[in-house]
């Protein structure tokens, strides 16, 4: 079991307007979405991790450009989408660090809402196409069975569909009563992942498909519950993912990777009257498995994270 405790500061976004008022665009530092689905969850943050007697400092930086949102609609659906371009950098000072990634990414992502009528569940379909190129340390299997980490050029294309489904609720809502919330998200994706350079081992590409399904539950609803000057929003998330390589070339081999996780989150939201202050959050997570697209090797770990958002 790998138990870590870290504090992170989430840097606020800096947005710059460009172009004419009719064509607003933005360059965003500290975007809310990482460019290449990396293993860190908050881009543009700094953290310190104390583990096994040593301290590691890490920095995640993201500079992203996102185009103006384009919308289209008729009586049967509404959709929107936008292009994005980004550069990313992840550094840490640990000996044998496995996450020193840097590179470029381009993407198109969108959201489609069909008009199924309003008496049933709430649903939407997200879709994205992301292409990235950059350098990063990858795990390379040795003939002896051990692993080493090698800095390689990585090219990747990922197409994903992301469904959202919130089951229909019976009864009638009431003012002053915040109901528990349950919803599902996830979906399939196709990926192409290529590694080149720094020797034959680990060089080549794999193509594959994955499927992810997550159940999210907020037992007290999504309205903060006042407790001692703060307000709590507890949520739980149970996720399962399987990734299967359909083809492999070079020295890479086809694999099937599974990843399971359980997260318990406590967001200490400020009451509406006390905005613009630090909002702490606490997350306890247990995860088992591997994920090619985040660079996670097959492992099991329990993490307790303390965050500060401002």
């Amino acid at each position, binding site marked *: 079991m790998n138990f870590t405790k870290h504090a992170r500061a989430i840097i606020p976004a800096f947005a710059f307007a460009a172009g004419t008022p009719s064509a607003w665009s933005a360059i965003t530092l500290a975007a809310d979405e990482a460019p290449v689905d990396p293993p860190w969850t908050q881009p543009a943050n700094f953290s310190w991790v104390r583990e096994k007697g040593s301290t590691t400092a890490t920095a995640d930086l993201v500079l992203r450009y996102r185009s103006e949102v384009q919308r289209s*609609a008729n009586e049967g659906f509404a959709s929107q989408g936008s292009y994005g371009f980004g550069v990313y950098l992840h550094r840490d000072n640990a000996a044998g660090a496995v996450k020193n990634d840097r590179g470029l990414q381009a993407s198109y992502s969108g*959201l489609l*809402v069909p008009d199924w009528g309003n*008496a049933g569940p709430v649903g939407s379909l997200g879709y994205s196409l992301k292409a990235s190129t950059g350098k990063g340390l990858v795990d390379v299997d040795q003939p002896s069975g051990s692993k080493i980490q090698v800095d390689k050029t990585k090219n990747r294309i990922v197409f994903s569909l992301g469904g959202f489904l*919130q089951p229909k*609720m019976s009864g009638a809502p009431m*003012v002053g009563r915040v109901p528990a919330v349950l919803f599902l998200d996830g979906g399939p994706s196709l990926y192409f992942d290529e590694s080149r350079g720094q020797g034959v081992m680990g060089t080549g590409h794999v193509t594959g498909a994955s499927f992810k399904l997550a159940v999210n539950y907020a037992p007290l*609803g*999504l309205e903060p519950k006042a407790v001692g000057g703060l307000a709590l929003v507890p949520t739980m998330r149970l996720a399962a993912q399987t990734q299967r390589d359909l083809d492999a070339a070079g020295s890479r081999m086809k694999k099937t990777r599974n990843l399971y996780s359980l997260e318990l989150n406590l967001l200490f939201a400020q009451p509406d009257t006390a905005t613009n202050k630090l909002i702490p959050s606490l997350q306890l997570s247990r995860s088992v498995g591997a994920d090619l697209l985040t660079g996670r090797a097959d492992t099991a770990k329990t993490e307790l994270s303390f965050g500060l958002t401002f």
Partner: protein
Amino acid sequence: MATANPLPHDQKQRIETLVYYSVDKASPYALAYGATTDSLEKIVKFKLTELAITSQGASIMWLWINAHCHPDAAPVAPDVAMKCKTVADVNNAVMANAR
């Protein structure tokens, strides 16, 4: 941009119909089938969380509003949309963009 003059009745009614339909689309409750929730006047006092609307539900609601509000209103900017906590806030934000 806020309008200086009162909106024409037809335009105001179209916007209110769109807001109600979009809120109903984002809520897992069948609002239109409930005697206490079958009109905008009856739900305007609700917080979005009381209607079990998630952050993704809010995204669905704003996409439906912004994609269908033309020509009665301009799309609501994301920074305004994220501040809306109640159905009244949503309706006021769209009405403020009427043109």
